[in-house]
């Protein structure tokens, strides 16, 4: 069947503002939107700019807005967005990050926030000769948070970031939670200043847009709330100890 991809284009060297361009193309219902974009690029218009790599939802390169939802182009099938042919599918870059070209956004701000939560195991005790022990239950406590591929879909979906551009954002909190909930990690106090800042975890108001957008099925909103509870519990124990 034929579908129309309505793609938002922007080239900083020639354009002052973005514009939409229609591409009419034959597509199979089982194809990925990324397959269709690649065919446009290789056979219709080589100037179309987008990122891609693994093509099966594990590298996080091709997050974009498809019909207004933040998704991976390689995890969205044509039949998910067009059933009958002749439909128009809207393709736009992610929000809350500057567009560098067409569907390519500058993720510097996203990765800066990720780095700010110290996303690495903090444990100053020397490791044993073999592995550090961890029970299966302790391991599963942070399981879904380890799935994050840093694609920025949640960052784009977050309604808080529309008004407060300095909010830490969903992915960075998930990445912090991944370590806070790891029985081997001792870095809670080191991460606290960033998480407990006014732009840290607190601006989140449970809209659940991040959870809906996550292509890795992470319960992001829940993890943010759990992080808030950890901070509150810590503050309570601190004040009781005084």
């Amino acid at each position: 069947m034929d579908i129309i991809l309505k793609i938002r284009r922007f080239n900083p060297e020639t354009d002052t503002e973005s514009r939409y361009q229609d591409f009419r193309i034959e597509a199979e219902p089982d194809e990925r939107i990324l397959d269709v974009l690649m065919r446009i690029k290789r056979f219709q218009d080589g100037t179309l700019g987008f990122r891609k790599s693994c093509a099966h939802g594990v590298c996080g390169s091709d997050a974009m807005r498809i019909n207004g939802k933040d998704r991976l182009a390689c995890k969205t099938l044509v039949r998910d967005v067009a059933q009958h042919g002749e439909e128009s599918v809207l393709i736009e870059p992610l929000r809350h990050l500057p567009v560098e070209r067409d569907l390519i956004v500058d993720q510097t701000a996203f990765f800066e926030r990720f780095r700010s939560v110290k996303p690495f195991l903090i444990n100053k005790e020397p490791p044993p000769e073999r592995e550090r022990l961890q029970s299966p239950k302790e391991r599963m406590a942070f399981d879904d948070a380890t799935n994050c591929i840093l694609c920025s879909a949640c960052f784009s979906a977050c309604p808080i970031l529309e008004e407060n551009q300095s909010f830490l954002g969903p992915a960075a909190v998930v990445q912090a939670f991944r370590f806070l909930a790891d029985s081997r990690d001792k870095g809670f106090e080191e991460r606290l200043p960033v998480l407990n800042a006014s732009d840290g975890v607190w601006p989140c108001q449970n809209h659940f847009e991040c959870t809906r957008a996550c292509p890795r099925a992470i319960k992001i909103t829940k993890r943010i709330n759990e992080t808030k509870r950890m901070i509150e519990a810590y503050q309570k124990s601190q004040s009781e100890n005084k």
Partner: protein
Amino acid sequence: MKHTFDAIIVGSGGSGLYAALEVSAKAKTAVLSKVYPVRSHTGAAQGGISAALGNVEADDPRWHAFDTVKGGDYLVDQQAAMLMAEEAVQAVYDLENRGLPFNRTPDGRIDQRRFGGHTRNFGEAPVRRACYAADRTGHMILQTLYQQCIKNGVHFYDEYQVLDLALKDNQCAGVVALQLSTGEIHVFEAKTVLFATGGFGRMFKITSNAYANTGDGPAICARRGIPLQDMEFFQFHPTGIKGLGILISEAVRGEGGILRNNRNERFMARFAPTLLDLAPRDMVSRAIMTEIRSGNGIRGDRKIDDYVHLDATHLGKETLQSKLPDITDFCKTYLGIDPAENPIPVLPTAHYGMGGIPTDTHGRVVIDNKGTLIHGLYAVGECACVSVHGANRLGTNSLLDLVVFGRRAGRHMADYVNHGDPAGIATDATDFSREWITRLTAKKKGPHGGRIFDKMQRTMMEKVGIYRTETHMARAVGEIQTLRERYMMVRAEDRRNAFNTDLLELIELGNLLDLSLITAVSALNRRESRGAHSREDYPDRDDPQWLKHTLARLEKDDVGLTYKDVDVSLWKPKPRTY
């Protein structure tokens, strides 16, 4: 723009990041990567990383080394395999200590599972050797190493495409790279350079490889006169999702999954009576293609796109969800089926290049049979050939290769920068790169790369695939040579500077064409069947003639071949049965 470092790492997958951690602690280091580091294809590795920890049953590094040698059909350099198996144990503990969230046994140790070709006591029965984190082991390794790089302040140049290597006599002087965001050409002067650019599976039509896997490092080395080793050995993974090539981990069979034909028969019982579905990948892929050709595929029409079933329905929802969650997700997303209820339609998919830039066990690039080095130049991971995988890699040994040899190369580089003087980069170092890009972006009419890309992938898939013959491969060589001529006329439609991904694709295409030619010529010349190189006209392994590594040199439009000895100092080659 010109930059000066002690050490440059090209590539930010598992091996590049591990090397970067080691060398950056002691020398001024930068990592160049065509993608953001967490996007590298190491992240797509699923099933596990092998090490004889013995956490769930008795194991021994010597058994691991032997399995690696036999799995590689005796083309493995045996001391290198032994070293990898021995260092595997500490390497896995190091990853755990750095935070990697392995699945655990009830007593809190790293859990281990079965994988193809890994056995106890030199082939007796399958052994649980693969340490794993669900079916996302590669993702966890990549994340853990990147986390450590952040902690240690490693300096990254993200989205820089390497274009060329600068050599001065037999010494490395640096690299030339294209900054994708601006189109600017940069010179990175360095005493030592490591290529860790990953695989080149995109030369084939159906592949598990990422778009980024275009063999940039090996292609650059080949154009600079460095031979590539054993390029005829390319592994087809038995279980890719039919039509798409997306990998369905061997861990599905490690957990008990079974391959079945249209009679619902467990056909591997006929091909590998002891290891059954856990035989090495080359054998399972051939078994699948043999079934399909005999009319035993699910459709039964004997066409090359017929398929077989991977049955995991008996594993139960709980095992699938806890140990194979991503596989379950892929099946639901791309096939609309739940593997707990329906068998998965699978077909072999181009997966892993055993060959690459020849190195020793420190990652140093060695260019001939006499041990001649390119001083300061290193390669690790899939782009390199140590050779620990020989003619066919065992599952889980790729992640191990990255970690063990990434660390060894990084340490050796850190030491190397303290000795001798830098070669100094020549003023004309960027000439080749500039001419290449100028040609591709010239305001002239020329064919676009899309059709050439498509034709190259079809040629390699159909004529240099699982089963090979003289006639087909000779035709492939001719076709690839024609495509390389047409490539000289190709022009990018996009002539802008910022994020010119059209130009990037053409650069990648040029690399893949060079590697396709080398692969096809190396394969055509090897008149035997060994591991993944399976010839219908020479069906047997021929040790007297062919127990040797290929060294293939790109000589303009042709490829010159010489050969190199295999280290068989530990185990005498024997027939390979399972």
